[in-house]
């Protein structure tokens, strides 16, 4: 066994002068422990949050959409579909109609986003089916599905008849727009897991949408789903190049850019805040070691008379810091990962969906984050041992053996 380590263990845990000494050691280990555990849990939750938000965004939204400049309706979408056949990143291309309107049920009205989608679109169909909470998918043209939060707001249930007003009515009477009102039966209610969607989205059959928005068979755009969602910007660029003017594209990453930037910033800030915990832990280590050095003045002096060099003593005290750090870090790591495991397995924390984008706390432990936390705490702890260790190494042996 390394003798410096042997002495370090004895100095840290053996025969302290006061019980208080043990408590201070325990606190300094606890400080590292809490810092590491908190960092791992919080970073993992932030990762999970980001991942989950992304997944939910791409789940309900398409990955890329094709539009015309000035949002002109597209009528020859079949030929666009044909010309993109060679793109093998593309999973599906489906036409959609997207517009705004008012929904009304009894005394309640609400502004909504109305999406017309085609029943032949098996991908969207599949996804929406997955999220369907009550009822079933629209079978007829005058049926719709809407989000749970919207349903709650309007107090509608499946089977209720709601009215949708769209601004593209007849212009005959006064030369001005008169809203067109159509009646729909609520056939189903979905829960897409994201409040924004659940509170705003209404899905109606494409053909009906084309009719109530006066598009006469044209569509707003085409939705594209691709294999690797993170390649969306590149694929979108290639599509744009292929189709040329007057077509343009949007992709989910670009559309949600500010959201992702905000999430990334949030993670950084949380990290900095938690870094404070680690720094406090470092101060605990400094305090503990200074206490040990003060308590062990005589012992350090005697060790010098026995032939320990300044460098040996330095090592003894760096080892003590490392012992505190390793015990704290390993226990923090285990407990942090265990908490992450519990959170992901049982999802026992419910979030109010109106406040957060998601209603459950997701967790995604990222290996690199964990390594980063470990390296960071180790560096901070080692740096914090330097001053006390230096002090100990410079202890004058004569002073130590003179006074007792």
């Amino acid at each position, binding site marked *: *066994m*390394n*003798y410096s380590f*042997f002495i370090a263990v*004895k*100095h840290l845990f*053996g*025969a302290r002068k006061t019980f208080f000494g043990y408590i201070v050691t325990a606190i300094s280990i606890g400080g590292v422990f809490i810092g590491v555990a908190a960092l791992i849990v919080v970073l993992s939750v932030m990762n999970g949050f980001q991942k989950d938000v992304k997944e939910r965004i791409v789940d309900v939204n398409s990955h890329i959409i094709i539009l015309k400049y000035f949002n002109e309706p597209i009528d020859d979408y079949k030929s666009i579909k044909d010309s993109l056949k060679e793109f093998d990143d593309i999973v599906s291309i489906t036409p959609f109609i997207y517009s705004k309107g008012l929904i009304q049920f009894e005394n309640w009205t609400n502004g909504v986003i109305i999406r017309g989608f085609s029943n032949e679109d098996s991908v969207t169909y599949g996804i929406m089916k997955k999220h369907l909470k009550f009822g079933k998918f629209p079978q007829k043209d005058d049926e719709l599905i809407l989000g749970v939060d919207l349903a709650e707001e309007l107090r509608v249930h499946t089977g209720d008849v709601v009215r949708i007003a769209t601004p593209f009515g007849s212009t005959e009477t006064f030369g001005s727009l008169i809203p067109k009102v159509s009646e729909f039966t609520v056939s189903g209610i979905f829960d897409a897991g994201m409040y924004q969607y659940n509170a705003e989205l209404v899905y109606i059959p494409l053909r009906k949408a084309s009719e109530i928005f006066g598009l006469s068979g044209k569509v707003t755009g085409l939705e594209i789903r691709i294999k690797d969602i993170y390649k969306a910007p590149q694929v979108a660029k290639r599509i744009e190049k292929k189709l040329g003017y007057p077509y343009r594209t949007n992709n989910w990453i670009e559309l949600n850019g500010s959201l992702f930037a905000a999430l990334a910033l949030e993670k950084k800030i949380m990290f900095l805040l938690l870094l404070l915990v680690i720094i406090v832990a470092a101060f605990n280590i400094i305090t503990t070691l200074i206490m040990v050095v003060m308590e062990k003045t*005589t*012992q350090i002096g*005697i*060790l*010098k*008379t*026995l*032939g*320990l*060099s*300044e*460098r*040996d003593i330095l090592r003894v005290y760096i080892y003590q810091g490392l012992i505190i750090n390793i015990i704290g870090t390993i226990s923090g790591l285990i407990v942090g990962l265990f908490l992450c495991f519990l959170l992901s397995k049982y999802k026992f924390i419910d979030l109010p969906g109106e406040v957060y984008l998601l209603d459950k706390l997701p967790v995604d432990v990222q290996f690199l984050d964990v390594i980063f936390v470990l390296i960071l705490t180790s560096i901070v702890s080692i740096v914090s041992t330097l001053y006390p260790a230096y002090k100990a190494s410079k202890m004058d*042996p*004569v002073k130590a*053996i*003179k006074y*007792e």
Partner: protein
Amino acid sequence: MSSIFKVFNLKKSFQIKDKRIDVLKGINLEIEEGKITFILGPSGAGKSTLLHILGTLDSPTEGEVLFKGTRLHSLDDKSKSRWRNENIGFIFQSHYLLNEFLAYENVMLPHLFLTKNFFKSKKKSFELLDSLSLSDRVFHKPNELSGGEQQRVAIARALINDPEVILADEPTGNLDSKNSDMVMQIFKRINRESGKTFLIITHNEELIKYGDRVIKLVDGVIENS
């Protein structure tokens, strides 16, 4: 007869605020190898200070200390430490055992520093404690030992690396006459058996009979007797 230590014009002063205290005022001295030398002198004469400087625990303000031709105080900390570990066994008035360590652990430490071999050191420590009739005290903590036993454990620790020199500062100062005689007999025996050099500070003139030579230190200078 060769000298193990040669001291030339050794001066030591301490600075307290703006006051300079000259403790050692130019000491010239040779310590003969294989002999037991006593240092006598009134309190405050500078005996301990001299011993510390000889053992490289302290540095002189001026002058030289040669150990077998080596200028001790030009060595760096690492070499000094190594030198202490191999060549010097310190024994003090108070036993200065490390209370976190058991008796045998205290004894084995210098050997562990030297050999880095835990098991060899442990074995040697047991043997040494046995030779000092402490075989049933090896697993005791220092504070579970009597004063005489503590001092014998400290002696074992000073001897474990088989050093050339034992530097002892009032080693019997805390002991009764029975224990004092016991310690001195141990020193005498070791000196006879292994030819180690002993430099012993004492106030007890009765012990001088165990030694070969007496040096008197008065007010920072050697007094010729």
